[in-house]
């Protein structure tokens, strides 16, 4: 660590202002999962570190090793790299969100601060769904695209075919592809050269008024909000009074600097540079992603920014036990501080008690969030089935197959690969579609989606009754064609989870006043242990005490006692 600081301290002697805009490049790495994004980022960091003339290569590598040993691998993060090319020093800003979540919203955030992308494709797997999605994002943003074929060291690598795919799918000449092995470092240097040669410098001017785009933010308990910004014009320095275009609130810059990828304080940031800024913001909501920052005395027109991250998947999150509510609340608060895209609404279910309805950008997002809740905060939570926002009930939508999908187009990427586009209702893909697709295609198919907006559909409210009493937390909105099967499934799950009682229990799924499914739990006619003598008492008492404990946790609906497990069984997402 000491050496590292020393190393950067030396670098600090280089005045950032001496980087003319034409020697700055802003780029990001986009890839399908596991195609080697982080590995390439690691390599780029290493290489730009090792070219330093004043330092021994080994030390930089050592530092990275130590980091790895501690489990803090240098993930693709925002990092400013110093790179010498043909006698000139360049500032290469590798922009990426530090997220754990890989979806297009995040990618588009990084892309908007860039002029070029490295599009990584696995030499073995070829173009996959996210490769396509990310390509289009970059293409639409009119960025320079550098195709990088990774993992050429693998036995089954077939860069030839992948190049053909790239040519065919993206209309990029195969000659522009760079074949590398990020793992071994093969040809990675060429990537850096291509960044300098093929990506244009940011179209900005240091002369104009200060203007910066907030493309990410995180929260630090000691310093408040840390906003990652791309400076699009002018300069900013410590002590400047800046204003958030979104809120119109003014702040004083306390600290700013480069990300390498660690925070590296500097005195100023100039147009074309990317870095972080701390300005006394107390809430991540004050550093709205996509917001524009400017100097108080020099107002500018806000940058186009981003569409507000719109939650598309909702899940009810409840503590396993109500006594865990305060702990879970603080865990959620802390996690959402660093992830402003999660919407939080308080909610309560009569079955599960007080909890929250959280909105996520996607399923993966939700899963990561829940996993972090459990792993980092040791919170045991009940996750109820995600729901999708519906707008209105108008008329019938066309149905194709069971998933109500409409095929939009079909393109053969090569003779072995086909890309089919469907329009799906979101609720059809939200729970298990991806898993089903993977298992049906033995893992070969890949899948990506974007939100196509609201569509009219024929939806209906489905109520569940226990002995005539509605169970409000089980009320759902379903497609008319699914009402019967959903109702039936819920009734069956309930039947399996509610223990027999002293009276008959009718479980009904109802639409309006029409019963569409029914299950009956018969009353106990006999429930008594036959033998209970001297040797049986201990065992019998244990059994009964357990039942008595369970009884306390039951929820009563009318006269029916329902174990919490029953709700969990019905509400929770089905395991894979």
């Amino acid at each position, binding site marked *: 660590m000491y050496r590292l600081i020393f190393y950067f301290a030396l670098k600090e002697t280089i005045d950032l202002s001496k980087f003319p805009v034409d020697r700055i490049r802003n780029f990001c790495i986009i890839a399908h999962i596991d195609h080697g994004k982080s590995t390439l980022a690691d390599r780029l960091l290493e290489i730009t570190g090792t070219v330093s003339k004043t330092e021994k290569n080994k030390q930089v590598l050592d530092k990275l090793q130590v980091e790895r040993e501690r489990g803090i691998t240098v993930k693709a993060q925002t990092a400013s790299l110093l790179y010498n090319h043909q006698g000139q020093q360049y500032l290469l800003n590798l922009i990426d969100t530090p997220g754990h979540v890989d979806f297009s919203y995040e990618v588009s955030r990084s892309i908007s601060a860039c002029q070029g992308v490295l599009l990584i494709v696995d030499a073995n797997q070829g173009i996959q769904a996210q490769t396509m999605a990310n390509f289009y994002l970059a293409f639409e943003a009119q960025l320079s695209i550098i195709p990088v074929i990774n993992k050429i060291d693998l036995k089954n690598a077939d860069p030839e075919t992948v190049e053909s795919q790239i040519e065919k799918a993206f209309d990029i000449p195969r000659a522009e592809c760079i074949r590398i092995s990020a793992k071994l470092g093969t040809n990675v240097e060429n990537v850096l050269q291509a960044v300098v040669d093929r990506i244009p410098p940011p179209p900005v001017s240091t002369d104009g008024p200060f203007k910066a785009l907030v493309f990410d933010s995180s929260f630090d308990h000691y310093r408040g909000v840390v906003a990652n910004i791309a400076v699009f014009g002018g300069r900013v320095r410590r002590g400047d009074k800046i204003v958030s275009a979104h809120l119109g609130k003014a702040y004083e810059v306390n600290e700013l600097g480069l990300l390498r990828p660690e925070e590296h304080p500097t005195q100023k940031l100039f147009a074309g540079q990317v870095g972080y800024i701390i300005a006394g913001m107390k809430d991540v909501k004050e550093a709205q992603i996509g917001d524009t920052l400017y100097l108080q005395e020099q107002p500018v027109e806000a940058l186009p920014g981003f569409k507000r991250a719109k939650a598309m998947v909702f899940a009810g999150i409840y503590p396993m036990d109500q006594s865990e509510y305060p702990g879970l609340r603080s865990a959620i608060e802390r996690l959402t501080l660093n992830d402003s895209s999660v919407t939080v609404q308080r909610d309560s279910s009569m079955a599960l008690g007080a909890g929250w309805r959280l909105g996520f950008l996607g399923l993966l997002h939700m899963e990561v969030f829940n996993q972090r809740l459990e792993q980092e905060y040791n919170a045991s939570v009940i996750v109820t089935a995600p729901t999708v926002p519906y707008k209105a009930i108008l008329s019938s939508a066309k149905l194709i197959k069971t998933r109500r999908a409409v095929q939009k187009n079909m393109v053969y990427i090569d003779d072995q690969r086909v890309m089919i586009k469907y329009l799906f209702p979101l609720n059809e893909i939200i729970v298990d579609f991806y898993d089903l697709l993977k298992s049906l295609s033995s893992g070969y198919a890949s899948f990506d989606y974007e939100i196509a907006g609201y569509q009219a559909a024929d939806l209906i409210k489905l109520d569940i009754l226990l002995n005539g009493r509605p169970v409000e937390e089980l009320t759902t909105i379903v497609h008319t064609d699914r009402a019967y099967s959903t109702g039936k499934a819920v009734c069956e799950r309930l039947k399996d989870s509610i223990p027999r009682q*002293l009276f008959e229990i009718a479980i009904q799924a109802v639409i309006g006043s029409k019963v569409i499914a029914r299950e009956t739990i018969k009353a106990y006619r006999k429930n008594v*242990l036959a033998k*209970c003598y*001297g*040797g049986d*008492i201990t065992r019998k*008492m244990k059994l009964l005490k357990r039942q008595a404990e*369970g009884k306390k946790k039951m929820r009563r609906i009318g006269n029916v006692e329902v174990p919490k497990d029953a709700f969990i069984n019905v509400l929770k997402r089905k395991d894979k």
Partner: protein
Amino acid sequence: MIKRTFPAVRRVLSPGVRYFSGRDTTEDVCDGTDSPHDTKQASLYVHWPYCLRRCSYCSFNKYIAREDNSHIMTQCFQRETETLLQLSQVSSITSVFFGGGTPSLAHPSTVAAILEAVSKHVNLFDKAEITLEVNPTPVGMSKLKDFCHAGVNRVSIGVQSLQDDDLIFLGRDHSCHQALQTIEEARRLCPGRVSIDVMFGRPRQSIESWENELSELLKVCDDHVSLYQLTLERGTQLFKQVQRGEVAVPGDDVTAEMYQCARRTLHQHGFLQYEVSNFARHNAVSHHNMSYWKGRQYIGVGPGAHGRFVPLGEGGVVREARIQTLEPDVWIREVQQRGHGTRRRIQLHHLDVRLEEVLVMGMRTTEGINHKHWELFSPQLGLHEVFGKSNDVQELLQSGQLILDDRSLRCSWDGLAVLDSILPALLVELETKILQRRQRNHSSDGQTEQASSPR
């Protein structure tokens, strides 16, 4: 060595009778200790661990004897009986029950030796109920007379079924004919004190065949019948057969009907049900088993036997649940080395633990728990106070499954069949009330409760 006690020769006090001692009864009950009237007597259970073969449904603690070790067994039974009697400091044994296993495989002299050991140290009345479980085999039958000479005055015969097919399938070592003969012989030896065990819910059994079987039994039986629904116990051969789908047992509705049908039939024949599984006419109830349901002390002797008593002999004041070592060989070694084979001792410290047992066991009887009996264990919280106001209990009372009146808290005819669905509600209520009371006492700054308990 065993401390000789010289109990006064007098009728054993019934538990309802006030027993005077220097200690404050109210205080004792409050902190969970047994009141003296309870600790002066106990029943004795003797477990004979051996069987000739394994029944396909049985998960009891039993062993197939490899050799005749009856001499050592006898010595150990005697030794352990003496040790535990001394430990309990009881002055009398109210009843003895020889169970198993197959205790009728034991030598009558073993039974005699154990009874001798008992009466050598404590009061064992001539009229005390001494029950022996008997397998209705020719050997078992031939020894009946000697068992009676040894002191046995009540016989419980494991008939199980009157269908030879079923007896074979269940792995029993007797035939229907032998069972009938044994019943006859036992009735001759112990008239009015013969019980038969019968099992229903057997594989392939129908309601009709059960009805027929019952009427056959009623022709031959004496004044006591125990009916047990066959339960599938993990680890038994039958359990595996049912799991594998090789054998089907009647469904819940069928066994429920069998039970109701048997209760009706027995009732018509003058048998009063006095417990979930037990029926008697001419008041021939099993006093030994009644003492379990009344929450009285009992001493367990033999491999795997359970006991519940206050070990006054070592200065104990709290009732303990005691379990003897399971394996006969190990048990023998332990008894030889330290006089007893008690493997586990669980102190039943708290008042609520005792009360819970009183409740759970008492509710199994048709007379339920009368107010006086409850007051012995819970002088401060009466049955009405605990259960009278609860919504759950009110529902049970209204649905007619539970009865709470001036006499007692008890199950109705219908309620008894679903007792295990009723008990959790009662236990929750009991726990709540005890907790409330405790909190109130705490908040009233440790005021004594003496005044609130007129006795």
